[in-house]
């Protein structure tokens, strides 16, 4: 079962949330960020090339122009491969764990998997981000030493940064699965 809705992120950009219910114990949430806009790309390229041309008129060395082209190309490739995240996915599987995948614009995917035994809870937290107060969804991990303590807070959807309405949807679904898991888990 699959459905798609559109939300907005904290800056007002459009996000698309795709929900897939594979089974009562397995759900996937896929958040697509706005793509790289042609306007910003053109603006950055023009700035770099104007600066290079200005330097060229000062120094009369044509190496500056080729260096500028090189820098622009390398910078774009680096940005697409290391910085620009296209899609963030959260896969939650009852009694197995939670998996977070970030897909970059160049196709690279980086995955983190947290076992269910380490997960204490999933909560929505508030944070001060620059001049705003934003909400973010995070996974609380159990402390192996102290039974009621928390060892780590792992934020989810870090680069998409959706607003509270989107987070509430994801939060409700995750809590259903966590409640089901806690009810049927065998205590050691």
């Amino acid at each position, binding site marked *: 079962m699959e459905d798609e809705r559109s939300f907005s992120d904290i800056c007002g950009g459009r996000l698309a949330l795709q929900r897939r219910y*594979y*089974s009562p*114990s*397995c759900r*996937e949430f896929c958040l697509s960020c706005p793509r790289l806009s042609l306007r910003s790309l053109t603006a950055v390229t023009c700035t770099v090339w104007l600066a290079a041309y200005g330097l060229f008129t000062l120094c009369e060395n044509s190496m500056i122009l080729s260096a500028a082209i090189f820098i622009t190309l390398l910078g774009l490739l680096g940005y697409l491969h290391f910085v620009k995240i296209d899609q963030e996915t959260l*896969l939650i*599987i*009852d*009694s*197995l764990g939670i*998996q977070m*995948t970030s897909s970059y614009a160049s196709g690279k995917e980086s*995955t*983190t*998997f947290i*076992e269910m*035994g*380490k997960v204490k809870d999933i909560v929505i937290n508030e944070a001060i981000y620059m001049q705003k107060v934003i909400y973010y969804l995070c996974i609380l991990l159990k402390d*192996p030493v102290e039974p009621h303590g928390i*060892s780590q807070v792992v934020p989810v959807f870090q680069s998409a940064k959706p607003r509270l309405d989107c987070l509430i949807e994801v939060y409700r679904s995750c809590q259903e699965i966590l409640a089901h*898991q806690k009810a*049927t*888990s*065998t205590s*050691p």
Partner: protein
Amino acid sequence: MVLKAFFPTCCVSADSGLLVGRWVPEQSSAVVLAVLHFPFIPIQVKQLLAQVRQASQVGVAVLGTWCHCRQEPEESLGRFLESLGAVFPHEPWLRLCRERGGTFWSCEATRRQAPTAPGAPGEDQVMLIFYDQRQVLLSQLHLPTVLPDRQAGATTASTGVLAAVFDTVARSEVLFRSDRFDEGPVRLSHWQSEGVEASILAELARRASGPICLLLASLLSLVSAVSACRVFKLWPLSFLGSKLSTCEQLRHRLEHLTLIFSTRKAENPAQLTRKANTVASVLLDVALGLMLLSWLHGRSRIGHLADALVPVADHVAEELQHLLQWLMGAPAGLKMNRALDQVLGRFFLYHIHLWISYIHLMSPFVEHILWHVGLSACLGLTVALSLLSDIIALLTFHIYCFYVYGARLYCLKIHGLSSLWRLFRGKKWNVLRQRVDSCSYDLDQLFIGTLLFTILLFLLPTTALYYLVFTLLRLLVVAVQGLIHLLVDLINSLPLYSLGLRLCRPYRLAAGVKFRVLQHEAGRPLRLLMQINPLPYSRVVHTYRLPSCGCHPKHSWGALCRKLFLGELIYPWRQRGDKQD
């Protein structure tokens, strides 16, 4: 809890049979290791499983049945499969079924006993997780957090399901030793059933390594015995040995070679990786050294270098003379105390004159020395770089001497000034109590003290300027030496084998796993594919880096600045922490 069945991808197309594997009750998961095909004799199966259990310390048992048939299973087959449950008792009993050519599976898990808690179902929900057996067997899991008080073989409740799966597959290697060409009593299907994997080169290397290691280990023990003999413990040689970084590097490499050629087998994978990394590091070092050697000795570059060396040393000495003449005049417009200036300037100029004469004395031998030094590059690039660092230290020895003179003079002056300043205020340093106490001085003590204080204070700028100039020169030389040491450290400690493994066989170093949900139909059990998530490069370097010489700066920046201000001598590249003046 949902029952998780880990099924190897190599058995997906195997014929019907029994599922052999391990049941982990705390995680409610069944790890299927192999499929045992019909026909079989139950006694022989039980014997085989007992043998495997003893050899591998893994609780291998028959977990259930696997049915891979053309259409829906017939009545008789169904009853036969059920009767097997009586022959091999196991709780819960798994029944996996797949149609030939179909994509969807059916899984059931039944418990024979009555459910203990009211409301708990007699049948559990099953989740199928496919894993690549070869990759999971060969890979090593690097979990992010390691509990400090864990021992080997800890309870699986604390380790988690992934560690249990990897551990089970890795330790059950005994089960995978037979393939379908062996005439054994039972026929198994696993990742090696099409033929056991082996490599001729690896086998030959293993056979040859025994005698070679023995020979080289004896040679190396001879070398270490020679180097540990008493001649080297006497004063001049032991002093030189501790100061020169070349000796340090040679000792380090000897340790590495002893490790590589030791006849003891590596006990665990970590030691094996360390051995392999050491071999790779030594090989890279020697290769780079040979390249440097061929570059140096080709086209008589050594001659050019030797011809350029003495004029360069002369030039440096001349520049120092110009600097001193400048300091003796009015440097940067500051007004110096003429008498002290002349004394210090002439003292240092005489030193430089001695140094130039020494260099000219050495000049006919320079080319021979350089030629032999160039030969040392065949021992490795690190040895050549350490030699270079030592040569730089020797050539700039006069700068070091000037720095020591300047620092001592300045330190003396600062101590005198602070003590006389206390006298000026009527206080005294109490050595017994290690604090400043008030003290009543006589009039003549006060008079002499104030006079000396004034003299020292007005002579301070001159001394401070000389100290500043020579400290900056010394720091420059130390920075150059530091860069060379950094490069040597890099070559020494980079784990090349692990990096190469991460590049070419990324599944061998696992940071974790990732799951992919396969095609799903409502009402059918959930199917997931488990793949290995490789370790990022930064963690590979961090986990597997070899221990280096340990010549790191011991002071923080704050402590260094304080020492410079007070005029204490600094030794930023102190080796092995011995205190010498």
